[in-house]
């Protein structure tokens, strides 16, 4: 990203002014870096209000990043459980169902706990707003949750309850419930991408094409990873394949995000987001390679690979979350792209070819 000083200048009376009001620096913008290192390479100069952010960084904390992971995990595991159910893999089914449900419970906790007023969580059910991914997600979860929990409950029923009428009914309902849940799982895995994208957060919004695939890939990788962790090698082949496919999607999409020629991509490739996502890539890649190789034979390797995939997925979510936060803390991510867009529009109006936006938006 190199920006000629002049292009950001406005015309009118400002010609010749040197009061750039903030500078973007090549690195070290993350607030968590602690050190007060002197900024080094000026990357672009733009004007701002005392370097103050234009946007409010998300008020969400780690719980939402964690939910991105647990929600994806629950969805991936629910799909795996349904497949296992249909293909007669009882251990994989049982633990995937249980894992999916546990992840769902964790998700519920994380979502409610992150609210400013947790006791009002049920206000989410007041409206059904198509314009709000969170509202859509709420209703998806409302549809997804009962079947998911029902199926898991059927699998963990104590023996003496199984025999009772309700127990029998429950077991009867388990498959349809599990299948219904699985049918909604892709929505659970992907809506969170829209949730993040439909914000003014530059890094999230700018990545709105890629985030869904990143998230579903990550969900698949973590779901597969969970399957490898909990199921015997013999039953885990679909899990390994799901993990491998998901990991591939996750890694490739993550790379695609990094390679976008936009300024916002910088939020993913610098600072803490970068470090988290690099670690994620190592873990996911390692897990995936193991999944298609040694994990087919070795239970310990399978378990380790499963853990690596889970960790890789989680770190990817935290990395994406961090990138979004970082892109709101620095006004450059808001001002520079918008200014460029204006310049292009103005140039188009004036009939001159302006600086082209590399990604064509």
């Amino acid at each position, binding site marked *: 990203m190199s920006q000629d000083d002049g292009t950001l200048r406005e015309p009118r009376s400002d010609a010749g002014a040197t009061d750039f009001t903030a500078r973007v620096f090549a690195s070290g913008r993350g607030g968590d870096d602690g050190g*007060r290192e002197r900024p080094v390479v000026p990357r672009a100069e733009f004007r701002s209000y005392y*370097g103050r952010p234009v946007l409010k960084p998300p*008020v969400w904390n780690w719980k939402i990043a964690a939910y991105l992971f647990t929600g994806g995990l629950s969805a991936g595991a629910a799909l795996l459980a349904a497949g296992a159910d249909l293909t007669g893999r009882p251990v994989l089914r049982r633990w995937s169902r249980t894992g999916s449900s546990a992840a769902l419970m964790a998700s519920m906790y994380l979502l409610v706990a992150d609210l*400013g007023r947790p006791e009002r969580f049920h206000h989410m059910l007041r409206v059904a707003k198509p314009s709000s991914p969170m509202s859509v997600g709420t209703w998806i979860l409302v549809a997804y949750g009962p079947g998911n929990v029902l199926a898991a409950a059927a699998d963990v029923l104590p023996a003496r309850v199984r025999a009772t009428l309700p127990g029998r009914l429950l077991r009867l309902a388990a498959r349809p419930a599990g299948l219904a849940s699985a049918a909604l*799982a892709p929505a659970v895995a992907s809506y969170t991408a829209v949730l993040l994208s439909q914000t003014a957060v530059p890094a*999230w919004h700018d990545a709105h094409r890629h985030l869904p695939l990143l998230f579903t890939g990550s969900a698949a990788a973590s779901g597969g990873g969970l399957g490898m962790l909990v199921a015997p090698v013999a039953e885990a082949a679909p899990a390994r394949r799901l993990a491998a496919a998901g990991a591939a999607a996750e890694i490739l999409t993550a790379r695609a995000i990094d390679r976008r020629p936009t300024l916002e991509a910088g939020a993913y490739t610098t600072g803490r987001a970068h470090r988290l996502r690099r670690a994620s890539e190592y873990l996911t890649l390692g897990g995936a390679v193991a999944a298609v190789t040694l994990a087919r034979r070795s239970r310990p390797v399978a378990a380790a690979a499963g853990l690596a995939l889970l960790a890789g997925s989680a770190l990817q979510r935290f990395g994406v979350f961090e990138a979004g936060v970082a892109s709101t803390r620095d006004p450059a991510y808001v001002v520079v792209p*918008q200014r460029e867009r204006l310049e292009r529009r103005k140039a188009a109006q004036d009939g001159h070819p302006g600086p082209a936006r590399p990604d064509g938006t």
Partner: protein
Amino acid sequence: MTNEHSLHGPLEDPAADAGHVGHPPRVGFFTDTSVCIGCKACEVACKTWNDVPEDGLDLLGMSYDNTGMLGASSWRHVAFVEQERPLGRQDPGLAALPTGPSVTGVQQDVVAEGMRHAERGGAQLGTGPVDVGFPSFELPGASTGAEGRTDFRWLMSSDVCKHCTHAGCLDVCPTGALFRTEFSTVVVQQDICNGCGYCVSGCPYGVIDRRPDDGRAWKCTLCYDRLRGGLEPACAKACPTDSIQFGPLDELRERADRRLEQLHGAGVAEARLYGRDPEDGVGGDGAFFLLLDEPEVYGLPPDPVVPTRDLPRMWKYAGVAASALLAAAAAVFVGGGKR
């Protein structure tokens, strides 16, 4: 009731689009910063009427601005910008004085450096205390022997929630706490808000924020209660020089156009309207401004777009990704046999 521009683009009647029948005309603010004296009466009048708490006793060094930003506890914010530039035909009285180089850039840099290390990059301003601290390094350019300065202007501008035609905060709110009123304004209902925080990230202007101790999201209501009683919002009423004008949006737009023309005629070529255009990324603002410099100089985004604009596309991508996941899940069981 919905139409093709329900989510973005020009929308004639937002209140009707939101289901209000027989509603009053759309109202808003026109803030003419060319007559703002930076007195901050708007900030205090707003806080007084709305019982907004004090949000930090920190010296910020942003000229006379010690509020810094809009936030959960600052619904009006007066920006102060010192610049080495001329303002129309104003004579700042520096000609022929034994001046050295300007420090307006240094002033910006010192504060910006403080911002980098402050909570949320300084975006906590307006919501809670932010300590910019003391300057920590040798200042660049403090005494470089450049030419003496001869130009100066001091810009002041009272910022407020824009009450967008397409409001990012309102669109994403999952509880309906944020809603469009019969006046086409955007208001958080405090009896509903559960503090999910989505609106904070949905706003392309960085206006709305969550109060840490209270847990709910807060912003300007355009004095919804006063409007319902036929009263003018507190800030506009207090504004000594009528920099903040309240009224039906159509009238305000006409007035703003006339004022712009007048200023251009008077040689203030740098005057421009911000948020006036119904064709812009948020469908035009209910609270718009006459500025004397680029918006980012006042801390405003130069070309904000409501995130909802891309909503259908985003769901499309999500659908593709979801389908791919479903297909992959099916494939891993179907292919490869039972191993």
